[in-house]
């Protein structure tokens, strides 16, 4: 009887150790998100394009830009490079606030972060505030051979979306697809991440295609063409710098 009990205790101990070891092997949701942010939001100088086509319209809009970012995209300066009419109308996004520089009027104006960029699927705030680790509590909801399915639920009501389902590649840790939900459960946006490339900050998807059931047929594509890792000083992220362009001298 005593021997039987010892065997049971031993088996239980082995099971507990196994569970502990497997828990150590599987990354938790926080680690996955932090790794994803390291890959996707490096401190860098990047060249990107935005392509928009509204539903039912043949006319497309294309913007070229250079952006400087730090602190997981919480501080960004966007310098427009095309079209010619937009050159000089630069943007500063910082801690949930967005300012736009109007070169014609030589004035900096505060812009609501919920304004869409040129009436498109991207909003100014999406870029700055779509910071997963600060705004969301992540949890692994499922997985398959290739990816983890994470569920991110808002930490508070200032998060840009109420809930996000995010598919993250097991190998590499980059995002594959995101579905963004409003509080009432309706899907408001889907982002598909594609075209893996190493532009200088590691291999990651460089094309983001945004679709929304609210604007069926509209196409919004962001492509990163170049990305140079760069430690940018905090002092360049201020309204005055929209005019003085201190980052050019770095």
């Amino acid at each position, binding site marked *: 009887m005593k021997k039987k009990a010892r065997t049971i205790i031993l088996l239980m101990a082995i099971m507990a150790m196994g569970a502990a070891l497997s828990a150590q092997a599987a990354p938790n949701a926080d680690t996955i998100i932090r790794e994803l942010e390291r890959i996707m939001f490096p401190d860098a100088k990047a060249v990107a394009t935005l392509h928009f086509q509204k*539903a039912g319209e043949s006319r497309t809009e294309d913007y070229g830009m250079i952006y400087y970012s730090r602190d997981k995209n919480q501080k960004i300066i966007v310098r427009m490079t095309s079209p010619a009419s937009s050159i000089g109308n630069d943007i500063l996004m910082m801690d949930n606030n967005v300012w736009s520089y109007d070169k014609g009027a030589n004035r900096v104006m505060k812009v609501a*972060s*919920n304004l869409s960029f040129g009436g498109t699927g991207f909003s100014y705030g999406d870029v700055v*505030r779509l910071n997963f680790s600060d705004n969301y509590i992540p949890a692994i909801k499922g997985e398959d051979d290739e990816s983890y399915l994470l569920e991110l639920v808002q930490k508070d*009501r200032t998060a*840009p979306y*109420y809930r996000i389902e995010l598919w993250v590649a097991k190998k590499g840790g980059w995002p594959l697809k995101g579905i963004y939900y409003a509080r009432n459960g*309706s899907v408001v946006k889907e982002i598909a991440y594609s075209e893996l490339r190493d532009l200088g900050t590691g291999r990651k998807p460089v094309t983001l295609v945004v679709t929304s059931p*609210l*604007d069926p047929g509209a196409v919004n594509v962001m492509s990163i063409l170049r990305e140079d890792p760069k430690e940018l000083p905090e002092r360049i992220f201020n309204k005055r710098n929209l005019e003085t362009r201190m980052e050019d001298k770095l």
Partner: protein
Amino acid sequence: MLTPKLAFRNILAHGQRSRTMLIVVGLVSAVLFLFLSFSDGEIENLKSGVIALNEPATDIVVYGSGFKAANDRGEDWQHLSTRFIEDSSGILAQLRGLPFVKRAVDPTTAMTLDIIAAGKRHENFFMRGVDVEQPYLIKDRLRMSEGSFFDSSNRPQVILHYKTASTVGLRPGDRLRLSGKDLFGQVVSQEATLSGYFMGDQDNPSLGEIGFMNMAAYREVSGLGPAETMSLCVDLKRGTGKEGAIAKLSGWASERGYKLEFWDFADTPRSVRADDLLHTYGLFRTIIEAIVVIVLAIVAFGIMNVVSVNLYDRRREIGTYYCLGSEKAFLGRLYALEIAMLNFAASIAGILTGFGMGSLLNALDIRTETSGMQIAFGGSQFRLGFSIGSAAFIVAAILLVTLITAVSTIGSSLRVPPLAAMQDME
């Protein structure tokens, strides 16, 4: 006392000339008063129409403690949201029970939302929530042109301005989707039913971008909790002073441990939209005032001429005054007072005539649905507003013209030798 008596006697003695002057100055005053009344009417229409629907007016505004100061400093929502009013329904119920409170309501916070209808996105509607049980802030200022106002059901409902009907292509009862960001910047997407189309009581093309939703829709899209709000509106019973009421309300709140502030509505900042509209119509007002000044400058030359001729014709009288021992300074005062009394009476008569004509025009209740005319009128009704400010402006301007006339004309006209009295007699 002698001078006013003599001036009055002179006015009566030269009845024909005085009457002519009275009629001319009176007519000018009447026309100019009507001009200014038109501008007053525009602004009244604007305030009771577009602005009242944009930003409901009340007597006292209630905020959470420190909210107004934080809002004035431009603090962001994260900070402001810690100063919202919680338990707003409980507080409202208690406020409505106070003896000096006529009514109280949650005015809600207007938000900019897109409307998606039949697969098309219509951007930037300025949407405000309406408490169906206390809709007076909004309902008293509009009428439904199609469909009906919100019913008491809990389904999210929306009403839009009738001029958007052709753009959004919806009929009452159709479904639409409200899309945008809530007050905290979070994406919202909410289905609702179009209850109908409204027309402002003082309609204006600017109302085209305004819409209203019931509280069921507002609670979904605002991001606020069911008992949270940024402010409350309190209307006082007739005869209740605002200052006294604010003191009583502050005492009432502190007794119950509510962290609330009470402000006179007039001291609360206007929204940017209301400011922009008032600024535009303020500019119209300035243009009208400039026209009034130009007209008065032209009239001033006419009055100078008439006064000059009058005094020339009255050389015998002036000579007689000199023979009786009057001094030039006394005569200067006498004739200046005479013109001033005459012009003052004429301007008052003109204003009263303008008031009468304006009242007649208002009684005709001229209304228009043409956008251009609505912009000109500030609303859909042609209305002349009468303000003490406009009347005072006319009287002051006429008296200024009189002063200029006196300074520029009387001095030279009094250079009459005492012998003029004798010469004329011969």
